[in-house]
């Protein structure tokens, strides 16, 4: 059997870079000006808070202080990097929560997309049912799993006990290790349909000729998957994952509603930590410093995403 790897899909297919630049030069400026209202609105609702947060990060601003905030230079950042173990824990938990969630949701989404690829007739409703978690508001997901993971009366422990897998209830939300696993499971349930959608759409775009050619070459199911389909899914996987990394990095309601970042700091991610510092302890200056670091990390991922979108607009 001589099934050649399918050529990497040339999804860009657009004009070359010099051609795009030439077209850009020919643009009518009036159309650029039409973006002005949107730019003004964005500057107000996004730009100003960012500038203000950066400004606050160099102060000792505290909501409980009756006096005006004073400049402390880089002190907040120095404390953050040298004398705040919770910040590093939060950073680690953010990475674990984000990357484990995205990897698990992508793999399950891929498996479901492949499993439902050839469903026909009434069976297609299965795919619709699998997409329903995507339509459930995150706050509802949080409370749903909060009750499911209760150690007493929670359906998860009941199921595990009846299956004989456990004999004593697991304190899902009451122990650090299990609490992180519980919030990740809830998040994976909520975000898997996104990957199912992405991969289903990408699978539908695999050209029939390529599939036919592979069949003529007697490609087996495994070869069809690894050499034909997966290369076509690469772009969807990369873009979808980046998008979900950004979303999960910001995921506040799910974690906060399920665990409030605890017990101890076991599920405290950067966004939860910023909230706790700003609105529980009222250290607005220090919270802004954490927020700035969080923003920089997010910008890296957002930049990667935009770059990929530019090089692979399809």
């Amino acid at each position: 059997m001589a099934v050649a790897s399918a050529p990497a899909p040339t999804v860009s297919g657009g004009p070359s870079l010099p051609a795009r630049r030439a077209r850009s030069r020919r643009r009518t400026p009036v159309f650029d000006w039409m973006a002005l209202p949107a730019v003004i609105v964005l500057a107000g609702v996004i730009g100003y808070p960012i500038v203000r947060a950066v400004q606050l990060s160099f102060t000792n601003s505290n909501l409980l202080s009756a006096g005006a905030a004073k400049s402390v230079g880089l002190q907040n950042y120095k404390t953050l990097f040298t004398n705040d173990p919770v910040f590093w824990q939060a950073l680690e938990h953010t990475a674990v929560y984000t990357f484990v969630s995205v990897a698990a949701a992508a793999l399950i989404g891929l498996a479901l997309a492949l499993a439902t690829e050839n469903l026909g007739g009434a069976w297609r409703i299965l795919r619709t049912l699998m997409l329903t978690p995507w339509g459930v508001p995150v706050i509802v997901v949080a409370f749903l799993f909060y009750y499911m993971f209760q150690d007493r009366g929670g359906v998860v422990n009941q199921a595990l006990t009846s299956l004989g897998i456990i004999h004593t209830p697991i304190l899902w939300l009451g122990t650090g290790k299990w609490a992180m696993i519980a919030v990740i499971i809830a998040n994976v349930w909520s975000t898997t349909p996104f990957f199912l959608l992405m991969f289903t759409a990408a699978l539908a775009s695999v050209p029939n000729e390529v599939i036919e050619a592979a069949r003529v070459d007697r490609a087996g199911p495994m070869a069809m998957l690894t050499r034909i389909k997966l290369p076509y899914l690469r772009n969807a996987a990369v873009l979808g994952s980046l998008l979900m990394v950004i979303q999960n990095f910001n995921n506040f309601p799910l974690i906060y509603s399920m665990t409030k970042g605890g017990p101890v700091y076991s599920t405290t991610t950067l966004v939860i930590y910023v909230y706790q510092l700003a609105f529980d302890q009222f250290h607005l200056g220090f919270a802004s410093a954490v927020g700035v670091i969080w923003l920089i990390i997010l910008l890296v991922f957002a930049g990667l995403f935009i770059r990929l979108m530019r090089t692979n607009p399809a």
Partner: protein
Amino acid sequence: MRGDRQVHPARKFVRRPLRVAAGVAALGLAVTACGSSSHSSSSPTSAASSSAPATVTFLNWADAETATSPGITAMINKFEQLYPNIHIKAEPVSYTDVEHQALLQYRSGNPPDVVEMQGNYTFDLAAAGALQPLGSFATSSYKSNIIPSELKLGDINGQLLAIPWTVAPFGLWYNKVDMSKAGLNPNDPPHTLNQLLSDAAAIKAHEPNVIPFGTDTTNRTYGLDQNWPFMKTDGAQPFTGTTANADTPGMINYLTFMQQVGKNGYTVVNQLGGKFRDPAAHNGVAFDIDGPYLEGVVLSETHETEAQFAQTWGLTTIPVGTTGKAYSTPTDHQLVMFKTTKDKQAAWTFMKWLSTSDYAISNYTVPIEQSIPPLVNLGSQSKALLTSSPFYKTYIDDILPTVILPPWGPSYTAAYTPIMTTIQSVMTSGVSPSSAAKSLQSQLQSALAGS
């Protein structure tokens, strides 16, 4: 060079309207700024005459909770009937969010007039300089009818900044049905921490789906409020002023107790105190540390009569530790006025009526909040209601004398996170109480140094 640059005709076309638009926008911003400036600079002492129509905004969590929302709405309606020139605009917010909501509104120049407050929240708002001193409104006849310890709660740095609305200290609620099922005497609740542990073990053994002990261990000031009596009864006080004092035998005793509660699964760690009330309504909690509100929530869910409730539940003081002394802390609700309030007299009229009128007490404070009014001399209706319930007698005779005030204020705000995370840590891990106390000592030293 600027003068040499070719200007595209389309740019010429749009430049003028853009300038005009920019001018209009700048003018709009200026007008807005002036407007807000004039608003914020209005004299804080100005008070509209009592006959002029006034609107008082009332930020509160009573209106955000199912059990109390209809009651507080009825109170507001009644007040507006009695005082037709004063309109009360209720702004519901959850208890968890009320403090930062009020602070953020204050900092952004749009504060409410009257706010329902509790415990350390009041001290935080006072530290922020947001509160109106009430000494000039609280006449001697008003003061003479308030329970002195309740009046003292609102006295911060020598100024009366909050008035008491409801009196509600923590007590130990015990479920007689659960105790009977576990083979315990339902009329003999635990009086010591050791008895509490052994009773909890019996509950867990006989009724695995019942939470033996409901106690708030969340990382918030309310969590520390609820744990403070347990620390005190074991002889612990983790800090005094800005001095950390956590590495003591008393604190180790207390942490050992909490470790047994956590490791044996007697409670749900990191659960809000209020979240025990729903299972409690269905006999799902055997012993619960709570204020009088438990009764209101249970009754609103089960639709039982008070007599039926009293058959199921009993109330006593919080069990004692090594010192042999029982303690409790207040969860009393207070009313505060922001100093930016435009019509202070109208706001005060509402605050006073809601907290002291016989109508409000006999139709809301006692039957809906299930709390004790802060008055020395009660009206006839209120008195009749209070004497009809066995729980009020327990509160007044047994629990109120055990009430102590936690050291609320900026140090408390700085200290609660290290203390509560240490408690959670000993409850969920194998860390020894003595090393946890040592670690807490250094965490507190650093936290209190910055407070």
